[in-house]
C-alpha cells in the first residue's frame, strides 16, 4: 500500500501558518506534502517565483502519525495559463527546474486540449472556485492519461461556501465521468489548518464525487506516487540511450530465432 500524500498546500508568507498546516498534515497521517507556489504570468509580471528553503520555512519537520518518520515536503509550481505564450513549452526549462512538481491551470478549451496532449507537466489543476467555461472532451482526457499527466481536484473551496461547494462537486463529477476514475488526484489547497481533512475523509469525499472505493483510495495514495515518479523522470531524463545486440556477435546472438532481437 502506498502512503498518503497531499500535493497542494498553498504557500503563504506567514511562516507560522505554514508550519501549523504542515504539522496538522503530519498529524492527520500524510507522509508527503507539496508547497504550492501560484504563478500568474502577465505583461508586467514575468518573474517565476523561487522556492524558499524548507528548513528556514518550517524548521524541524514534524513526525508523521503512525510512521515515526519525518514528513517529506516538496515544492510545486502552478502556472495559470490564459495565453499560449505564458507557458514555456521547451523541455527542462531553467525557470521550472527548482520545483519538484509542475502544474498548470487552464482557462480555455483550446489551451486545455493542448496542455493534455503536449505540455510537459505533471498535473493539470481543475479549479473548484468557478464554473468551468468548457466541457471535458474524451480525446484530451485519454491523451493526458496515456502520457501519465493527472488531473487535480481540490476540496478546500468546497468548505468555504455553498456556491463554491456546488462548483467543486459539478467540476469533479463531470471530470470523473470522462476519465472513469483513472488519473485523478484529490488535494486540499487548504489555507488554514482547520481546512485540512484526514486521508480517509478525503477518500469518502471521492466516493461522493462518483468514484468507486478503490479508485478513490488511489486518488490520495498511488496516483500521487505515480505523479512524483513522473515528475522525477521529467526533470532528469534528458535523452535516451538504446542498446542493441549486433547481429552474429557470438553464440548468444544465434539463439533461437524467436528470441532474436527484431531489426527494424
Amino acid at each position, binding site marked *: 500500500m502506498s502512503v498518503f500524500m497531499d500535493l497542494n498546500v498553498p504557500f503563504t508568507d506567514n511562516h507560522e501558518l505554514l508550519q501549523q498546516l504542515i504539522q496538522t498534515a503530519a498529524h*492527520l497521517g500524510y507522509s508527503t506534502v507539496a508547497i504550492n507556489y501560484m504563478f500568474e504570468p502577465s505583461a508586467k509580471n514575468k518573474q517565476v517565483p523561487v522556492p524558499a528553503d524548507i528548513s528556514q520555512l518550517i524548521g524541524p519537520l514534524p513526525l508523521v*502519525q*503512525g510512521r515515526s518518520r519525518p514528513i517529506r515536503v516538496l515544492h510545486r509550481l502552478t502556472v495559470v495559463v490564459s495565453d499560449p505564450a505564458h507557458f514555456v513549452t521547451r523541455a527542462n526549462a531553467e525557470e521550472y527546474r527548482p520545483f519538484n512538481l509542475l502544474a498548470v491551470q487552464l482557462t480555455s478549451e483550446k489551451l486545455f486540449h493542448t496542455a493534455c496532449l503536449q505540455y510537459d507537466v505533471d498535473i493539470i489543476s481543475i479549479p473548484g472556485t468557478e464554473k468551468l467555461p468548457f466541457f471535458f472532451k474524451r480525446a484530451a482526457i485519454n491523451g493526458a492519461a496515456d502520457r501519465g499527466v493527472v488531473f487535480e481536484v481540490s476540496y478546500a473551496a*468546497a*468548505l*468555504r461556501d*455553498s456556491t463554491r*461547494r456546488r462548483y467543486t462537486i459539478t467540476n469533479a463529477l463531470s471530470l470523473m465521468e470522462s476519465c472513469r476514475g483513472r488519473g485523478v488526484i484529490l488535494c486540499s489547497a487548504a489555507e*488554514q489548518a*482547520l*481546512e*485540512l*481533512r*484526514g486521508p*480517509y*475523509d*478525503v477518500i*469518502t*469525499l471521492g*466516493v*461522493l464525487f462518483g468514484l468507486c472505493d478503490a479508485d478513490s483510495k488511489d486518488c490520495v495514495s498511488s496516483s500521487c506516487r505515480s505523479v512524483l515518479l513522473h515528475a522525477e523522470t521529467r526533470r532528469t531524463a534528458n535523452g535516451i540511450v538504446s542498446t542493441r545486440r549486433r547481429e552474429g556477435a557470438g553464440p548468444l546472438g544465434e539463439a533461437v530465432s524467436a528470441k532474436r532481437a527484431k531489426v527494424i
Partner: protein
Amino acid sequence: MRNTDEKEETSVYRRVVLKNSSPYHYMRVCLVVDDQRIRPSVVELKNFIITGLRTLHGQAGAAINFDVLKYEEDSLTAILRIYSRGLVKLWSSLTLISSYENHNCAFRVNQVSPYLLALTGNSRDLQLD
C-alpha cells in the same frame, strides 16, 4: 442472528453472532473549533450534524437516522451509530462541515468500525517505549 446462552439465564452477557454484514457502523468523531470556549451540548451537536446533512444532501439526507451513543463534552468527542447504508452520506457531510456559529471548525473522524467493541481502544494513542 442471535443465540442466547440459555443455561445462564441470570447472565448479563449476551453472545451476538453476525452472519451477514453488520447493520450498523460506529464512528468516533471529535469536533475541533478554533475558539476553545465553545462547548456545544449533545442536543446542539446532533442538531449541528443534521444541519450539515441537510446542506449537503437535502431533505432526504436530513432524514437519515443516526444516534449519538456517547458524548464527552470536555473533549468534544462523540460516538455515532449509523445504518451502514447511510455511512458515506454522513461521513461526507461531516467532512464538508466547516463552520460552527461563525467559527471555523472541523470534524476529525478518529475511528470507524462495524463493531462497537473496536472503539474501546485506539492503537494510535498508545505510548510505545
